[in-house]
């Protein structure tokens, strides 16, 4: 029997997603023990899990180090990996938003300065409306940028919006809805077709996954 290698995003979302895999019949008792191992196997279910940085999941899957994985739609839109997107898991829901200070008014006669961790998403969004922007790529604490006058607005993930509100910012526009997606390497999908297809079906059949939702 062939193994299916699964890359899960480290952190809260990953824990939740693992529970979904468990429910779908791909439990791995070793993963639930507290230890420092990096790779967890369950030979009976034929699955091998490993935790990677959320933004790296798509890279592991695209390059075939993992056959399948779970990545946020934000990562898929930003890095555009060449993978199959087999199911919307309906967890890790949030929105990609433009946010700015409460009193911010867009002056269309000037170049808009946009601070973000997601330059491609920001560029695509503004170029679709022909808005000239200056992208400021940051790696964290994006909310700080408009407060210090580094940028006019930010493009970032908004879950509840409380971080924004505490800092005197507010979401202005929603760019796209985000949720966790079950992705597969294109070649693995062909050579391990039965296993991966069954996994996608089992995951999509769970109550938490939504069928409608976003693109």
């Amino acid at each position: 029997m062939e193994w299916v290698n699964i890359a899960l995003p480290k952190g809260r979302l990953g824990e939740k997603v693992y529970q979904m895999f468990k429910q779908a019949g791909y439990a791995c008792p070793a993963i639930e023990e507290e230890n420092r191992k990096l790779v967890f196997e369950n030979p009976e279910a034929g699955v091998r899990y490993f935790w990677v940085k959320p933004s790296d999941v798509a890279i592991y899957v695209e390059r075939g180090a993992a056959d399948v994985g779970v990545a946020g739609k934000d990562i898929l839109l930003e890095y555009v990996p060449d993978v199959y997107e087999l199911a919307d898991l309906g967890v890790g829901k949030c929105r990609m938003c433009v946010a700015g200070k409460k009193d911010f008014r867009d002056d269309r006669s000037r170049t808009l300065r946009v601070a973000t961790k997601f330059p491609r998403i920001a560029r695509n969004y503004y170029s679709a409306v022909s808005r000239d922007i200056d992208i400021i790529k940051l790696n964290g604490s994006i909310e700080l940028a408009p407060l210090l006058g580094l940028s006019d607005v930010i493009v970032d993930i908004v879950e509840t919006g409380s971080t924004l509100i505490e800092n005197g910012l507010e979401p202005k526009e929603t760019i796209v809805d985000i949720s966790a997606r079950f992705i597969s390497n294109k070649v693995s999908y062909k050579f391990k077709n039965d296993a991966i297809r069954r996994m996608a079906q089992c995951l999509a059949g769970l109550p938490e996954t939504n069928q409608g939702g976003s693109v």
Partner: protein
Amino acid sequence: MKTGLRLKKEEVVLRLRELYRRYGYLPYKMSKFEEYDLYVRNKSFLVSDNILTFTDIDGKLMALKPDVTLSILKNSRQEAGLQKVYYNENVYRTSPGAHGYREILQAGLECIGDLDGYAVGEVVMLAARSLELISPDYLLDLSHLGFVTGLLEPLKLEEEQQRSLLEAVGQKNTAALEVLAARYTLPEQTRDVLCRLALLYAPPEEALPQLEQMVCTEEMAAALDELRQLCGLMEQYGLDDRLRLDFSVADDTRYYSGVVFRGFLPGLAAGVLSGGRYDHMVHKMGRPGGAIGFAVYLDLLEGYFAVPKGYDVDVLLLYDEGVSPARVAAAANAVLASGKTVRVERQIPPELQYRELRTLKERG
């Protein structure tokens, strides 16, 4: 990874050449660069937007070729019969994720002219045989753009909408298809067919009856007939058991126009062969007929080639300062005569792996 006998890269190139030659394809050697103008005029047919340019001595802007097909098509003559050529060339492209240009070695063939069912079948057969030569565990995915455009064309969608739908099919993303279908108010039947098409992945005998049920326009029926005929030919060649029908490979309607196929090998994360029918390009060049071809990306095959031996030479021959050159030469010849490789040195090179050490000392 299951692999049979592994070949060296040069052997793979040689065997591919031999395969194409046996079917009467002629070698095609081209210049490393072309006038930039050719590529700009045909930009929509290029895989990557970036072209490596330089200025020739007469001030003309030249480009290192990013693509072989355009050059072949430009230089091919319009005459009776088909033009069948094969090539083995480097192309220069940027690849997504890689920063900067890369030199990529491609082997492939093109068949240009008034194509019929046999000609198309022959090219697809040669694609399958090319893969078989590298690993018997290959898979060849086959699809037909006419089947997808035949479904979408009557709906008169905007280009952007059609592109989004094809992209979702290409990702097998049925969740996105549902959302897009609702957004563009597609008929229920179209939505269902798109979703089933996206998820289809099966050998011909299983897939063809499924496709049969999806046909709703004449163009789709014609595409299916062509596929059925092609699968029949592949069965006759004995190559049908590695064939899969998969419409996620048919997402580029600007370049391809009919049969499209991709080849995969176990253990490699990306497709190693890509091809299809590209009549649009032929028509853009103002010529009748069509063209079909494929390329094998040899640079991706590194992992498939024979692993070099664990050492660089059989014998490391060390000699002292005082040993005469004639004696060294004689000793080296003796090693070579026994069928071993030899490296002659006065000191042991730190990185060199050798199986046996022999020393020549000045006779005291």
